């Protein structure tokens, strides 16, 4: 009736070798035909592990991603901006929830996922380890960071794993306002007083390169790309997505009257693409290793929130148990 017996195919299976080969072939031809893999379908263990890693990193990024912007909720310059920022940060929390749920369909529990984040063993996007000293950073994050996230996420709407793809459709729909509110903030500042214009330029200077690095290492050094492409977890390489982002974003910066902080940036007539200068991968690796400007602060904040929320989780559970006990007593 169900295929759930297949995914427990293990050491005790007599014909494991031949069966695994046929199963793997069947799996790959399904992927090749653009069919979707669902939780109860058989899948190679490496596919499952890759997805757990990628989806949970993505979920952690949404959760930690609330912190840099969250800093500005109490200090937003107007009631309108404050309402918008709250709505955006709330969305990011929601994205984390969609993604944790998608990861859980692969057989890992929510508690395990959260433990990995809090223990510092799981990764999240390096971009959220940069500080947000001015209000213009909220604009730059919406415009650039959400812009880069959208570029990364749109192809995942067609990912071979059904629950991840469907979560991504929902997320992409919600991201659009994030980017537009960020651009609106940048536009207001860029057209404001000279000081506001300087603030916008300063934020662009600080967020440009980290945003470019969000697409991950160069294709030549990226270790997961080829297999992920074969599995259709990934549809475009890091460099392809980075190029698309740059081609779209540089004209937007020009419209704002701001300058992208890359002296080598030029339009190439022959290829019809922008050509950018060298990326400082040392910085990227340092931030990934935990030595970015805010790594420690982000994890500490997350841990504190988790600890301070403990009594609420325990009280809710105790209350539910008490209600249940009362109901059985009454019956």
């Amino acid at each position, binding site marked *: 009736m169900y295929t759930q017996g297949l995914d427990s195919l293990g050491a005790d299976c007599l014909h494991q070798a031949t069966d695994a080969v046929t199963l793997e072939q069947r799996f790959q031809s399904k992927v090749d035909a653009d069919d979707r893999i669902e939780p109860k379908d058989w899948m190679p263990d490496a596919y499952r592990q890759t997805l757990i890693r990628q989806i949970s990193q993505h979920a952690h990024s949404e959760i930690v991603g609330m912190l840099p912007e969250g800093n500005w909720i109490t200090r937003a310059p107007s009631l309108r901006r404050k*309402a918008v920022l709250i709505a955006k940060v709330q969305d990011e929390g929601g994205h984390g929830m969609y993604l944790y749920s998608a990861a859980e369909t692969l057989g890992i529990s929510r508690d395990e996922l959260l433990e990995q984040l809090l223990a510092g063993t799981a990764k999240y996007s390096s971009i959220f380890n940069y500080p947000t000293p001015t209000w213009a950073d909220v604009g730059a994050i919406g415009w650039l960071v959400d812009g880069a996230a959208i570029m990364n996420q749109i192809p995942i709407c067609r990912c071979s794993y059904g629950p991840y793809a469907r979560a991504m459709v929902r997320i992409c729909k919600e991201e659009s306002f994030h980017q537009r509110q960020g651009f609106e903030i940048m536009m207001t500042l860029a057209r404001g007083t000279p000081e506001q214009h300087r603030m916008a330029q300063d934020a662009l200077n600080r967020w440009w390169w980290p945003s470019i690095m969000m697409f991950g290492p160069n294709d030549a050094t990226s270790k997961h790309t080829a297999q992920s492409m074969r599995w259709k977890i990934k549809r475009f390489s890091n460099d392809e997505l980075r190029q698309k982002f740059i081609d779209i974003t540089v004209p937007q910066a020009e419209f704002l009257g701001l300058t992208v902080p890359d002296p080598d940036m030029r339009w190439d007539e022959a290829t019809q693409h922008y050509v950018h200068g060298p990326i400082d991968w040392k910085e990227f690796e340092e931030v990934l290793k935990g030595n970015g400007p805010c790594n420690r602060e982000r994890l500490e904040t997350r841990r504190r929130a988790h600890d301070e929320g403990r009594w609420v989780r325990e009280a809710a559970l105790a209350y539910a148990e008490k209600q249940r006990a009362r109901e059985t007593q009454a019956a």
Partner: protein
Amino acid sequence: MSEQRKQWPLYEVFIRARSGLEHKHVGSIHAVDARQAVEHARDLYTRRQEGVSIWVVRSSDIVASDPGDAEALFEPAKDKIYRHPTFYSIPDEVKNL
């Protein structure tokens, strides 16, 4: 009194129309157990290849919101028009936003 017939439990039926789509609620069905509910749902709801996958859930396991609470639950989202991208006016010259 004639024979006291025991009613078969009710199951809610969810069908995935095509590979990649989510399961959607299509109706309900009575069956002796979950296995039979899937078989009967197949016969009743997919005679014209309406689906590629079936889920059944005991109707009594479904917890629903109270229609009387609809206003309190959903009204608060009504005035938060800034959650929609159209709330922000971006000049036409700006592409890909």
